[in-house]
């Protein structure tokens, strides 16, 4: 089992959006429609004070990802209200088809004073095939609890055996690498279940994927697919500090597998997606999303600079 690269399938400069700053297509998430694959991602606008704000957009592809059919003409969800958990942007939004509705699980960002940001996971629902989404309430469906004190985000949902499963991340520490330096976060992958996709029961603090880089390893954007009767999770992981500039400390893809959705065995070597020097994803690979279409399993992901230029794809072979 290995991934065959399809390259940079969405180049933002070749398919510009009519909003945003023309950079970043982060956290690609696929929704398979009858005649196309719609891939949601977050692009960015810039506030008057220079701070970025993430907006959810999409690009439509042929079902084999070989061609871009079009891009969204406006963000798919309105900005959050004053003081809400998603007031300062949504990144990422994951999607789940539910009959004639589409559930969008949003990671909302709101800015803080002592640390840069806090996040929570909201639910937004589309009734027009994924063109626009309306919030289910102004607050999150999943947020901080006793043993997951902050930075709940990156929720991705699948229905398995009639039960909704969410894999997501929660923060474990905000620490300063040096006195006076900005606090940097550490986050781990967790798991929650639900009967309806709205009311969730967390395992509250259980870190389901073992660390490879030690206690300060940051794990993000889990995605789960099945192959030969086994559950596979792909995610990205990095060091707590130095990850923005040092490729050796930046995001790369990790992997774990499970037969019971409870115990996960980490095996990063297994799915193998080695970087190529000088390529668009040579320095960084992050924010994966696996999906199946017409019998093929694909992996969408971002490359260098956290997806500034677009996103790429790979196809599972062997």
């Amino acid at each position, binding site marked *: 089992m290995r991934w065959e690269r399809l390259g940079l399938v969405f180049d933002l400069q070749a398919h510009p959006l009519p909003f945003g700053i023309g950079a970043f297509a982060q956290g690609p998430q696929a929704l398979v429609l009858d005649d196309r694959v719609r891939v949601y991602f977050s692009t960015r606008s810039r506030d008057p004070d220079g701070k970025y704000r993430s907006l959810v957009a999409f690009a439509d592809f042929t079902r084999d990802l070989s061609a871009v059919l079009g891009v969204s003409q406006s963000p798919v969800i309105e900005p959050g*209200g*004053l*003081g*809400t*958990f998603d*007031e*300062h942007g949504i990144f990422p939004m994951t999607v789940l088809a539910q009959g004639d509705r589409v559930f969008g699980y949003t990671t909302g960002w*709101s*800015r*803080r*004073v*002592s*640390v840069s940001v*806090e996040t*929570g996971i*909201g*639910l937004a629902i589309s009734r027009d095939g994924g063109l626009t989404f309306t919030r*289910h*309430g*102004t*607050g*999150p*469906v*999943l*947020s*901080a*609890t*006793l*043993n*997951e*004190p*902050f*930075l709940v985000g990156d929720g991705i949902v699948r229905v398995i055996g009639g039960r909704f499963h969410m894999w997501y991340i929660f*923060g474990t*520490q*905000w*620490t*300063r690498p040096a006195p006076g330096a900005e*606090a940097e*976060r550490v986050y781990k992958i967790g798991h929650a279940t639900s009967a309806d996709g*709205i009311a969730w029961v967390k395992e509250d*603090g259980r870190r389901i994927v073992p660390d490879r880089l030690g206690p300060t390893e940051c794990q993000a954007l889990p995605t789960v697919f099945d192959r030969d009767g086994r559950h596979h999770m792909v995610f990205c992981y990095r060091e707590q500090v130095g990850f923005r500039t040092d490729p050796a400390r930046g995001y790369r893809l990790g992997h774990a597998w499970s037969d019971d959705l409870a115990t996960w065995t980490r095996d990063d070597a297994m799915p193998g997606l080695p970087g190529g020097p000088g390529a668009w994803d040579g320095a960084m690979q992050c924010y994966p999303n696996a999906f199946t279409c017409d019998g093929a399993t694909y992996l969408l992901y971002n490359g260098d600079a956290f997806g500034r230029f677009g996103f790429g794809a790979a196809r599972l072979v062997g």
Partner: protein
Amino acid sequence: MAVHDRPWLKEFAQAPSALICGDVVRIYFSCRPPADAAGQYVSHSAYVDLDRADLFTIRAVAEAPILPLGQTGTFDEFGVYPVSVIRHGDEVRAYYAGWTRCESVPFNTAIGCAVSRDGGMRFERLGPGPILPYGPDEPFVMSGPKVRVFGGTWYLFYIAGRSWKMHGGRAEPVYRIRMATSPDGLTWTKAGRDLIPPRIEPDEAQASPDVFFADGRYHMHFCYRYSTDYRSHERGYRIGYAWSDDLVTWTRADERAGLDVSAEGWDAQMVSYPHVFAVDGRTYLAYLGNDVGRGGFGLAVLDGPMG
């Protein structure tokens, strides 16, 4: 009483909450050191021990805050206020609101839980995060917890924000009274609705839902105010009242609260943050006066039946 040797206890004595401890009545409250250079406060919680035989005689004041502030990035990094305490076996549990600072609005709050094993002097968090999460209809500003046990079930009365209003360049939160129940005080099920309808305006803000059982009925005292310009006599906090036979359906009857602002003095501008407790056959209402407790808190004693 003036306290001079505790720099963390410089101003305010907010949100009183009583615990009977032998021959003293321990009143927990929240206080603040002086504001920092940017004018920002933090809040700590502490207690004062009142002589059980004469509640106007102070026997002791906490030597230190009952709970340190939270770590970087946690919900209670900048304040522990208010607290509500309850005995549970050999332990004392404190349910409290933690404060963090935000960019677009001044703050957010969430409800945490801490436990004391030394009779209520020092508390430790059950965990670094809140015990009651935000939800789709409780998006922010969860605060004012008041914990009770009735008939073996734990009840948490609290407030949840519903909107932030911009008024005169300030963001002002609007919040309402909510409830959750639990078999153990740890795992909570939210009722998911506002208990008390607004009376003075649609955006009325309500706080400090304090429930007391007497004469075969549940009595709730709370405080309410206008959503804007509420730092004045006319629009500031007043004490409201509602009653219930089942803790689910509440009938509001503010005219029966039994306490209004005084004609003059420390509680003439506003009255807020009521807390009812009984000791030795008498029922008291502790509350805050002007400037939401900048100078301290007061007591009223019940005369006749409640409500």
